[in-house]
């Protein structure tokens, strides 16, 4: 099986805080991979390590068969990212942002113009294309970040909570677009707290908890022996939260 992402013992520490504790990931090419975990589990840190924003403390990893440490520029040419902080210049307009990204990726003027127009229309941003990003709402920023990630037609997409703050119409269009993208051979590495989206879109799942992988594999394997249970129940079971008792907080009673 050809892998889009492969990590062995990937570890990231900040001083005495171990955010990611030697995880092994195997994300097949052409898969829709859902990366799950509770808050603070290490999801965003893992994505930052894989996209070159953080340098892993130890471990090996390869992205699209390339070594990101040895040749980061080659990897970045093939990868699109929607990071946690959306990574946009406040003082560029939406159109200028796409122009900037396209130019750095070396797109010719005609491709840039056509792709940007299609993406802006898809994200319902055509009318706001001339506005500064500083004046965009959170949802508009998220859509622009996604458009910027898709513009160079990457082979692998890292999406950190892409549906958070996006309206239902755009969300549906983006889901369809991503499904088509995967059918066309692209790979999506997605984190989301909305488990219904993961359940509907993803064919591979990885669950991280306290910096360690607690489950990984095809969605069908994860469901094996757990017939009739929702992904939420399986997820809570995997991270050991199902048994956790909710404190009563008696003082809340009126």
């Amino acid at each position, binding site marked *: 099986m050809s892998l889009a992402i492969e990590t062995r013992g990937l570890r990231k520490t*900040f*001083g*005495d*805080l171990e955010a990611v504790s030697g995880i092994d990931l195997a994300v097949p090419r052409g898969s829709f991979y859902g990366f799950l975990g509770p808050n603070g589990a290490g999801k965003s840190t893992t994505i*930052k390590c894989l*996209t*070159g*924003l*953080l*340098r892993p403390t130890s471990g090996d990893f390869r992205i699209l068969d390339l070594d990101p440490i040895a040749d980061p*520029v*080659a990897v*970045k*040419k093939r990868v699109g*990212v929607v*990071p946690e*902080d*959306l*990574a*946009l*210049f*406040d*003082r*560029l*307009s939406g*159109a*200028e942002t*796409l*122009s*900037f*990204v*396209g*130019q*750095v*990726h*070396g*797109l010719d*003027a005609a491709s*840039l*113009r056509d792709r*940007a*127009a299609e993406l*802006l229309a898809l994200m319902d941003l*055509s*009318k706001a*294309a*001339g*506005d*500064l990003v*500083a*004046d965009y709402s959170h949802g508009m920023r998220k859509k622009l970040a996604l458009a*910027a990630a898709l513009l160079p037609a990457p082979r692998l997409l890292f999406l950190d909570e892409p549906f958070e703050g996006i309206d239902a119409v755009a969300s549906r269009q983006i889901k369809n677009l991503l499904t088509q993208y995967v059918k066309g051979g692209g790979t999506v590495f997605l984190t989301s707290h909305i488990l219904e989206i993961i359940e509907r879109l993803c064919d591979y799942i990885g669950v991280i908890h306290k910096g360690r992988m607690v489950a990984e594999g095809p969605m069908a394997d994860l469901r094996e022996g757990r017939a009739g249970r929702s992904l939420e129940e399986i997820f809570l079971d995997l991270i050991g939260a199902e048994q956790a008792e909710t404190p009563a907080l008696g003082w809340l009673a009126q």
Partner: protein
Amino acid sequence: MIRSLRAFVWLRWRLVLNSVRGGRRRDTFEQVSRALAMAVPFILVALAFGSVVAMAIVGFWGGHAAATGLVATSVVVAVERGVLFGLLLVIVIFAVTSPVQGSLTHYTRLLLLPISRRTLHLVEVLASLADPWIAFLAPGLMLFAVGVSVGGRTIAAIWAAIAASLFLVVLAALAALVGFLVAWLVRDRRRSELFTLVFVLALSLGGFLPLVLAEQSASGRREARRRGEPRQNRTLEELDRMLPAWTRALPSELYGRAVRAGLEDRSVAAGAAVGALAAEAALLFAASSVVHGRLIGSTTVNSRRRQAEGPVAPAWRIPWQSPSVSAVAIAQARTALRSVRGRLVVFLSGPILAVLVFFFRRFEDASFITRLGDNGFILMAVGALMAILSAQAFTMNLFASDRAGLTLQFLLPISDAELARAKILGVGLLVVAATALSAVAAFVVAPGGAPALWVAAFFGVLAIYLLLSPVAVWLSAMFPVAADLSKTGSGGNPHGFAALAGMAGFAAAVALTGGVFAATIWGLERPDLALPVMTGWLLVAAAVAYPLVVLASRAIALRRENLGLVAQGR
């Protein structure tokens, strides 16, 4: 009420402490860098402490001298009035600029707390008392009253103490009122940025006003001497009578009247002045309360900067540069030009230069002006150097000032060396634009000088910028700050150490380049050689800067993680 005040004091204290400590993701170097950045304000406070002590001593001596008759009461009070009026202006200017650069978001957060609006208003007004200028003034005013008391004039001392306390309350309420009013009027981001830009430009140009007035007065005196008129010596009373009637309502004047009446045993007059001061304080406090109510009741609605819609097209490409470098450089110049700091870099030095020269030209008999008329290129170079200096917010913080935009650049296929080169080019475009404006301003007021010398001076400016660039890249990578370039205050500044080291680098580059230029023109007396010499010097600077920028860009890889975290404000 007391509980809320205590909570706000605690909040401010924790924010200061936590800004030094940072999060768990900070490495040791960043902790040191933050401590260094925090050390600068502490050093300033330590230095200012000396002035506060001096002010207090002068206040005590003044009070004692006035009470014992060592110095005439009218003279002591006149000095006090002058100082207080100056500080009144300073406090109003600070009050105008600071809220403009803030945001309404913190009000939204505070409004969610179970605190009455009245308490919130009182907290904000009391916070004005912590203004450094008021802190600078208070000990001097209070010790003046103590000095009067030690001089044996207890009743006069009581009047002075009451007047001083009321004056401080007036100042706090006035600062709060002006601050709230400006924040309310310019609550829109674009309006606020435009206001800051116009205000700073007006303030910079207005700074020459005293010089112009002094020159006008000197010229009047010269004219009178020429006509053989005797010199007029006016008394303080005569000068007072010349002041417009409205100045009598100024808090500094009311304070002066109360103190003087107290020292002259005119209790009714002192009481009237103190009463007027109290009325002013109450009026300002009430007005600030009304405006504060409006302010916290309003929401930020940003007018959008809409550009013409059309197909997305790539930005123009800088000759001899790759598309990536070109794109980053143009994005850098574009975003900078849309910030207050960037606009000041381009538009401040030219107009200041023009005003400066316009004023200097009034000195008809100054021989250096005659020379300046022949050497307008020097004026252009001075304007350009001012632009390079004011561009420190960019040059010494090339990466983190992009905030989230830096993450985007880190995710794009561009090497660190290319990124550094592009950033230097981008800020260089601003410097070139500022130099062009300075050249126009210089040409208007001092068009003399051979064209070759103008070009040579321009090459000299470029050489200085290039020589500074490796230092800029290294310092920006090592000492990043998440600056907000829409702010003209400390929030938009680079790291204190980077600014200081950058200044030293700038001075060295100016000394070297200026030395070469001056030696050619005035040392060798060969102005005809200036252009070839400066062309050669520019090539040398480029040859030195290029590999050094590549070398310095290694610091980006070394500090990439930290740069990303700082740029995100973590």
